[in-house]
Each structure stands twice: as structure tokens, then as C-alpha cells.
């Protein structure tokens, strides 16, 4: 533990999936190392901002809920993203705003009420030793997390936080428009890719005009969508690099939107790529939820992304 960090929480119950995430692991994708980072960039960024942290601080991504933490010191936190029925000493915790937690208080994540992934950011951010430039936890690769080896949280673990060096916590709440109701049907913006012309006309019409259902085969690698099978004249290609949000269509015609922990290369034809904010939005959808795909332009996607990022002062 470095001098400027301290134990912030003790894990009373680890729950199914809670992962440390900074912005992600960059510059090593050519070695087959995945990107990692928060599946919902939007919720993660807000949790950090509300806790007074700079862009890129490490927060805990809690999927489904089930996590119970006990504070080992007084610490300001913010929880944003999904509403997983979080309580502080059995009182509902207000989301999307900073909250002071006192030593000994119990923070308990319940189960999904609205959305799938909640982000817990302590002021100063969680502290762990970076591995290949990042603390983002990728269990499959054995990289990152609190122990550096991609291990899941275990009961009794002690989670370290950095001593607060960021700016003072000032914002009292995230504006209403940023608190997304993830239960609403989502329209996901997609930048068409080069193979779009290899899909049949009927398939392209279906892709952008029919409703897609989020399948239960969904994780941080990718989210499968079920609906009308899409036909592509190309069934497999020589493997090539694939970006965040790429929507690949394997021979069964059911698209898979690839998220942060995707493999670095792949060989299925792609409709295109979701914008970063649409990939984030999809990561909050529960299985069975309906989504639509909507083609967008690079100009619009860039404007939306830059507007989002600039609101975090980076």
C-alpha cells in the first residue's frame, strides 16, 4: 500500500461481480490484451465526477448487486449508473450525488431496480497497483484489480482508497437529464462499417427497423441481440482488429455488440460500431429488454462524445 492510500472498505459479502475499473488498458492491444474499463462509461464518469475525482480514477463496477461493504474510515462516495437498491445502514442511499459515509457504516447493494451496473467511486478513487498501465480488472486475462491478478473480490478483502488529492466535492447532484432511466427502450446509435454493403437489403432494413431483444448471453465481452436473422454475403473473414462497440454478425445472423473485454481481433462481418455512449447504454440493459439500432454519422457521434467528455473538464 502506498503512503497516500488507506483502507476504505472491508468486503463483508463479495456478491457475484464487482470489478475495479479505471479508464482501461491502452497501448497493449497489439499483444492481444483487451481494453477493459467501465462497460458504462457514462455512469462511471459521473460517479467519479460526483466524488470529486479526475477523469480516469478507479471506481468499482458492481453488476447485479449483492455486494456488501463496511466503511473502515470516513469517506465521501458517489454511486451512479444503475439503481441496484443500495442502502447505507439499511436506509436507501441517494444515487447520482456525493454522500459522506462514516466509519463502521454498511453499504449494501441489493438487486437491479433500474439498470444493471452501478459505479461506486470514493473521493480520491480506489487504489491498486497498475498492471500494464491500468488497474482495470479482467479476470479472463488475470490482469488488474486490487491484487493485480484479475481476482474477484472475496469476503474479508480490504479495499484501499487513495487519499483525496482531487478538487473539493462541489456538485450536489447530477442533473436530471443525466440520470438515465435504463428501463426505457434504448435506441443505439451505430456508425456503419465497411461490410455494411455485404448484407442483403432486406437484412439492412430489418437491422435498422426492427426491435432487437437483449439476450441473456451478455457479459463484458459482448451482448448478443436476438431478432430477425441477418444475412450477409460474407460469412467469415481473415481476423482483424475490432473496436469498442463493433456489431459483428456470425453465421446464425444474430448480432453481437462487442464491449470492453472483447477479444482484440475477430473474423465476423460487422454492421458497424456503436458509438461509445451507445455501447455504454447497452451495458445497462437487462436480458429481455428491447433496443433499436439507428444509423448515425461520424459528425453527430463526435459532437455527442466531445460534449459528454468536455462536461467532465478533460
Amino acid at each position, binding site marked *: 500500500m502506498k503512503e497516500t492510500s488507506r483502507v476504505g472498505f472491508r468486503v463483508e459479502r463479495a456478491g457475484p461481480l464487482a470489478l475495479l475499473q479505471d479508464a482501461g488498458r491502452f497501448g497493449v492491444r497489439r*499483444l492481444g490484451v483487451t481494453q477493459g474499463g467501465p462497460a458504462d462509461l457514462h455512469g462511471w464518469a459521473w460517479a467519479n465526477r460526483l466524488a470529486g475525482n479526475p477523469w480516469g480514477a478507479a471506481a468499482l463496477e458492481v453488476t447485479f448487486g449483492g455486494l456488501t461493504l463496511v466503511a473502515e474510515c470516513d469517506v465521501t462516495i458517489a454511486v451512479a449508473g444503475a439503481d441496484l437498491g443500495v442502502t447505507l445502514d439499511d436506509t436507501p442511499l441517494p444515487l447520482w450525488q456525493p454522500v459522506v459515509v462514516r466509519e463502521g457504516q454498511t453499504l449494501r447493494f441489493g438487486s437491479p431496480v433500474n439498470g444493471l451496473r452501478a459505479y461506486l467511486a470514493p473521493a480520491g478513487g480506489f487504489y491498486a497497483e497498475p498492471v500494464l498501465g491500468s488497474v482495470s480488472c479482467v479476470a479472463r486475462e488475470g490482469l488488474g484489480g486490487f491484487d493485480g491478478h484479475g481476482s474477484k473480490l472475496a469476503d474479508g478483502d480490504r479495499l484501499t482508497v487513495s487519499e483525496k488529492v482531487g478538487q473539493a466535492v462541489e456538485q450536489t447532484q447530477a442533473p436530471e437529464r443525466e440520470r438515465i432511466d435504463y428501463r426505457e427502450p434504448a435506441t443505439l446509435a451505430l456508425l456503419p462499417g*465497411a461490410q455494411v454493403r455485404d448484407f442483403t437489403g432486406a437484412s439492412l432494413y430489418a437491422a435498422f427497423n426492427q426491435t432487437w431483444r437483449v439476450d441473456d448471453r451478455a457479459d463484458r465481452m459482448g451482448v448478443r441481440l436476438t431478432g430477425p436473422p441477418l444475412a450477409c454475403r460474407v460469412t467469415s473473414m481473415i481476423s482483424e482488429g475490432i473496436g469498442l462497440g463493433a456489431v459483428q454478425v456470425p453465421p446464425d445472423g444474430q448480432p453481437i455488440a462487442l464491449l470492453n473485454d472483447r477479444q482484440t481481433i475477430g473474423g465476423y462481418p460487422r454492421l458497424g460500431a456503436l458509438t461509445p455512449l451507445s455501447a455504454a447504454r447497452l451495458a445497462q440493459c437487462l436480458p429481455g429488454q428491447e433496443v433499436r439500432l439507428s444509423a448515425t454519422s461520424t459528425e453527430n457521434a463526435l459532437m455527442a462524445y466531445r460534449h459528454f467528455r468536455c462536461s467532465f473538464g478533460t
Partner: protein
Amino acid sequence: MSANGQHLPRIEAAGLDGWLVRLFDRIEEDNLAWISALARECEMAFGAALIDLVPSYTTLLVVFDPMQLTPLAARERLVERLRQLQPDEAALAGEVHELPTWYDTSVGPDLERVAEHAGLSVEQVIDCHASATYRVFALGFAPGFAFMGLLDEKLEVPRLDTPRKRVPVNSVAITGRQTAAYPAATPGGWNLLGRTAATLFDREREGFSLLNVGDRVCFVSVDRDTFASKGGDTTPVDDT
């Protein structure tokens, strides 16, 4: 160059933060000289705005920071660099690695299946696999997992119908005209021939991955004792 009647190289959309440069439409060893050269040019052209480069058999994915560079500006830089691109012949030399490998049915449970499929003896399969020098075409699937080729046509076998839930670390495997060694224990559907004693991915090592795109690799057949003395794990594959 042409693919589907279209001119190459071609710069294809790959999301808000990336362009995929398609340089070739077929897997050839010489592709590498051009892909490496372009990767180096990108490092110079993009500087701090460069996030990642993902070379593969015929392409280079260039990932940049859209806060620093618009996709259009990024594309222009690529066009400019492609216009004056010269192949990097040195990349073809590549680093040469010899991977000490114990070929045995206990750690290579698919040896007999491959032999039967190829109409060869197990010894002939081993000789054939160990006598060639392979090129690393791409890394992917897992950190440090190198896709190498081209495997002798005689040994061409399809993937397993049902992938193993857990392929032990350092397993040496083949499928199609490719060969690889598993840097970590993962699920996998390739045919296992043996196990290497080399450390393929090491977070403490400069560059992390033993094998990089463009490197050349020979699998050197060693006996059990030599394999064990080099730190090889002789635990048999558990297929139950």
C-alpha cells in the same frame, strides 16, 4: 492490389475512434513488411493522439483519441502516410525464437487424432510440426497468444467439435494451417500436440509478450527430462 474488384489499400470506418487500414486481401508473409511500416508511420503521424495499433494478417487497426483528433483529420494523416509508404524489409527478418516442446500424448492428447486424420504416424506428425519455421501473423484471443503459420498442409485438421473447457498453459496446438501455444489456461478448440517450457507472457518482462507480430518461431522437440529441467509442467491434460 485488389479485393472484390476494389482498390487496396483501403481505409475503412471502424467506429468513432478508429480506422481499419486494409492493405491486402490474402495472407502472405510479405504483408508484414507493409503492415509494420505503416504501424511505425502511424506512431510518428499520430503522436500522443495514438491510443492503440492492432496489426493482423492483412490489416492494421489504428485507434486514436477523438478528443485530440477528428476522425476526418485522422483519416487524412493515414492517406498521407500510405501515399509514401515503403515496405520495412527488416520486419521480415523478425526475431527468431526456439520453443522447447515436449510432444507426448499425455500433454498432447490430440496427437493420435491428428495422425489418423493425416494418415501419418505420431512420429511423422511431430517431425512435420517441429521441422518448420513459422511466422507470427497476429496476436489475439488472449494476451500473448500468437497465431502462427503456415502449417504444412499435411497437418491441416479442423477444430475440435467441442472445445475443451480448459486448455493447460503452454499447450502447443494446431488448427487449419495455423499453430499456436497457449500463454494461459483458457477454453480452446485447437488440437493439442504437446507443451512448451517457454514463458509466453510475463508481466515483469519488457514488452510482456515473448512472441510479437513478425517474429519467427521453431518448436524444438525435447524429451520429458529436458522439458522438466527447463521448468516444463508434465501434468497430463485432464479431459474429464
